[in-house]
């Protein structure tokens, strides 16, 4: 039940945010280039991918061709899946290598990225265990994205993305145990939607 409430709140937050920007852009006829630096350029919703059962967040696109992307995510894993309510805070950095355009579609077939995340569930006694390797999780991923330009509505583009990633603990386990752990076993898949503001 709590997860639905959480998702609802997130959706409303994203909706409200996008409406604000939409109204402000239509009033003063500003473009995305005129956006204040602190206003996020898009919002994301993601399923799985090691940063929560569901996670949502906002981020910025920058660079000459908008191929750099930085995001902040807030993820949630319900009690039934983690033993207690798990909240995960994630910083994600993505770089899109290629871009193909067709009509209203934009295809980014290859992206590489890194995330660092931390959850409310931490190891006890950080005086004996170093805080970074035992509490932070670093992941590296490879993925892709498809965007569709929207003529109407609150968003300029809506995109679908996927990520295949792994984290430092699983890489360490693989290096330590080449005979019992297969290379393919350390990867997992995340799926998400990207809503670009006007």
């Amino acid at each position, binding site marked *: 039940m709590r997860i639905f409430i959480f998702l609802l709140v997130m959706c409303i937050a994203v909706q409200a945010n996008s409406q604000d920007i939409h109204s402000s852009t239509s009033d003063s006829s500003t473009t995305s280039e005129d956006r204040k630096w602190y206003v996020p350029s898009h919002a994301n919703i993601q*399923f*799985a*991918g*090691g*940063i*929560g*059962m569901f996670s949502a967040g906002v981020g910025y696109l920058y660079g000459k061709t908008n191929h750099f992307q930085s995001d902040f995510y807030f*993820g949630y*894993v319900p009690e039934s*899946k*983690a*033993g*207690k309510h*798990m909240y*995960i805070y994630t910083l994600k950095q993505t770089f899109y290598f290629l871009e*193909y355009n*067709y*009509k209203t579609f934009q*295809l980014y*077939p*290859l992206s590489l990225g890194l995330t660092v995340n931390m*959850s409310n*569930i*931490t*190891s*006890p*006694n950080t005086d*004996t*265990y170093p805080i970074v*390797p*035992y*509490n932070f*999780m670093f992941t590296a991923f*490879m993925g892709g994205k498809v965007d569709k330009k929207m003529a109407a509505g609150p968003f300029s583009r809506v995109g679908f993305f996927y990520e*295949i990633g792994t*984290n430092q*603990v*699983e890489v*360490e*386990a693989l290096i*330590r*145990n*080449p*005979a*019992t*752990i*297969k290379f*393919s*076993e*350390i*990867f*997992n*898949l*995340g799926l998400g939607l990207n809503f670009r503001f006007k």
Partner: protein
Amino acid sequence: MFMDAILKMQMRYSFLLIVSMVFLYSCIDLFQYSPNAISLDESQKDLNRKNYEELLSKEGDDTVRFVFAADTQFATDELKILVDQLNNIEGIDFMLLAGDLVQKGTSKEYKWLHRELERLNIPYFGIVGNHDFERNAENIFEAMFGERDFSFEYKHTKFICIDTNSKEWNWNGKVPDISWLQSEIDAADANDDIDKVYVISHVAPYDHVFFDAELEYDFANAIGSSPKVIASLHSHSHKWKISRPYPDKKIYLQVTSVKQVKENKWWQRSYGLISVSDTTIFKYKIY
């Protein structure tokens, strides 16, 4: 133009796509909510209870022999060698894995551990160690093995397994649970069907870095209170040590790790093989 792009894509990235499809097909957790979430199958849950039922269903001779191993942290390769070795030895009833089953407490580490352990011909029991509290391991361990303090009886012998990781409970004075231990030992004392008692825990009471120093003598006195208690079995230090540190002259064993460690200038890994009928303890190398 789009077709050109697609063609180019096919040339360049069909390989990439195929490789990633193969990866995804052989993933353990395709959709991982968090590395710390509990993503166990039904067959990977409640193992201590299931294995006890398996142990009781097996028919064997009257002698009880069990393997005492520990500290498999990040060492599934070594565990594989141990499992292969144990499957070739006859007359062993079960294995006790005394803590530190994983290193960083992620769900996948427990799944990799389980994959090796399920190849064992004998049942096994997991006992909690200090690394089984890392991140969310507290909850994953509980889902996988069950209660942290438990006891079971097998052929006139009682095995009491207790959580002694006081440090991981922030020295709350309740771990180890001395009153529970005393009541279990008293119950065994009063039961004529029980001849011998073994107490198993991860941290030895004389290790004050992880064991609550204020509870050391309570723990030792509880063990010394019954003539039926043969030995207290521990791991944690990765070094082989048999001693009688308290006035009651009870045996305290610390077992070497399954993980390869440097001992006497040589890389070693070993386990203990304990015969209950004549109380012999053998150290076996894993090779």
